[in-house]
């Protein structure tokens, strides 16, 4: 039986259709994916993303444990900052990508849906192996996570708090009262728009916050947004989705996450990455747009002159651009910008070319 969000009945009330994702039954859409997608690009939307995990990392060695188990040197991340990073196996492949928030003397990590136990166990194991004094606790069931995303997200939330949200910079986090409810706020998101994410505990407090945000955003035309639009919004920005882009075991070098790696510290998987870097000959995640009508999908083969050179990991019709867009792993010689490729959909080749992400530029709706 899939796990339901604590806000399940609320979603039903708003007409959600549900889908199962990583063991959770979550709204896939309320009105339509396209409508919800454009609402976030142009104004503001609210997402329940409680399928994501919450893990507390505490103890004197919390910082050391994060530095050991992620590609980030946590000592470089000051109190009040959020950081996007990756947890690797010894062989350099990604277990999960995640954000951790530095909140006073502890850290909250947000692994992907269904990854809470895997990440918690991995971190605890590594703490024991390396004699690090840290405690890692899966508290996913105690939290509702709401994402408020879109150019009007700050104006919406500002009505519900005395804290000046302009002072919370990009990738900053702190404790805050929103709608008279204690939350953790992080200026982060998965849509490429201005946005915030709220961690709310106990979960029974979340319904009120959700309703208050809808009320506050009414003048901007706020809507609840499902996982369907969440996926198309992230894909238009070239953001990876763990389940798709790490499938089969991929390293951060292959997944174009080298920018997240802090090479100046030791971490699990570093040796493997250095070896791969030196060798150089590996597939890399590549952004592709169709130059004819059609929609690339997960699992479609990518060809050059009839020969397989890669595979699509995520694909959709871009609701903003109205063209097919995809990400996929492509062999090094074929991923130069503007290189033409074919993507095979239902046994037929569709013309495509390599582009530089994001597919949809920043502030698209304003231009």
């Amino acid at each position, binding site marked *: 039986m899939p796990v339901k969000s604590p806000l399940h009945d609320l979603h039903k009330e708003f007409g959600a259709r549900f889908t199962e994702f990583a063991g959770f039954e979550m709204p896939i859409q309320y009105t339509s994916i396209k409508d919800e*997608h454009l609402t976030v690009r142009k104004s503001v939307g609210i997402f329940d993303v409680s399928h994501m995990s919450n893990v507390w990392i505490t103890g004197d060695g919390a910082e050391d444990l994060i530095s050991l188990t992620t590609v980030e040197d946590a000592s470089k991340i000051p109190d009040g900052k959020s950081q996007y990073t990756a947890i690797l196996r010894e062989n350099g492949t990604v277990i999960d990508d995640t954000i951790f928030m530095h909140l006073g003397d502890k850290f909250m990590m947000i692994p992907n849906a269904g990854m809470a136990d895997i990440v918690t166990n991995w971190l605890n194991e590594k703490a024991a192996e390396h004699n690090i004094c840290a405690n890692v606790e899966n508290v996913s069931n105690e939290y509702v996570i709401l994402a408020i995303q879109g150019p009007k997200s700050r104006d919406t939330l500002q009505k519900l708090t005395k804290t000046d949200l302009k002072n919370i910079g990009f990738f900053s986090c702190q404790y805050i009262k929103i709608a008279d409810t204690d939350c953790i706020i992080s200026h982060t998101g998965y849509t490429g728009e201005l946005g915030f994410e709220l961690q709310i505990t106990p979960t029974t407090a979340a319904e009120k916050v959700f309703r208050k945000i809808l009320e506050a955003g009414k003048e901007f035309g706020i809507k609840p947004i499902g996982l369907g639009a969440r*996926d*198309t919004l992230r894909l238009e920005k070239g953001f990876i989705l763990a389940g798709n882009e790490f499938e089969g075991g991929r390293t951060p070098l292959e997944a174009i996450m080298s920018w997240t790696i802090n090479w100046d510290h030791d971490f699990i998987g570093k040796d493997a990455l250095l070896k791969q870097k030196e060798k150089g000959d590996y597939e890399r995640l590549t952004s592709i747009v169709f130059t004819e*009508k059609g929609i690339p999908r997960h699992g479609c083969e990518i060809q050059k002159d009839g020969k397989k050179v890669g595979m699509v990991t995520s694909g*959709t019709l871009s609701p903003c651009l109205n063209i097919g867009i995809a990400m996929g792993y492509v062999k090094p010689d074929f991923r130069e910008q503007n290189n033409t490729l074919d993507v095979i959909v239902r046994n037929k080749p569709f013309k495509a070319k390599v582009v530089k992400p994001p597919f949809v530029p920043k502030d698209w709706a304003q231009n």
Partner: protein
Amino acid sequence: MSSDVRNDLKYTDDHEWLKVENKNAKVGITDHAQSELTDIVFVELPEIGKTVKKGDELCVVESVKSVSEIYAPVGGKVVGVNKKLEDEPEQINNSPYDDGWLVEIEIENKSEIDELLDADSYKKMI
């Protein structure tokens, strides 16, 4: 929200409709089907002249997230396709029984029509 089911059409349990006009029949997807799929954004139509057996894949209709195969409700030869849908696939959402028709088939064996559902039976099904 109840869906529109028209009395002059025949239906399949895969939510296609068939409108018989002499020896030809137009095929589309029902109002119920389009509302379940939501935003249709791409349609792949068959070649004119293609022959299909009842139950063969006739065309493909895609929403943002899903790919749905549409099966031939009856066998025959494809004699027309709604080319307009290639530029305006949303016509299937806006007008599933009229402007949103998909394919016209020259029916090979009229007795296959009798195997389809009438409006009342289809209404009960959805």
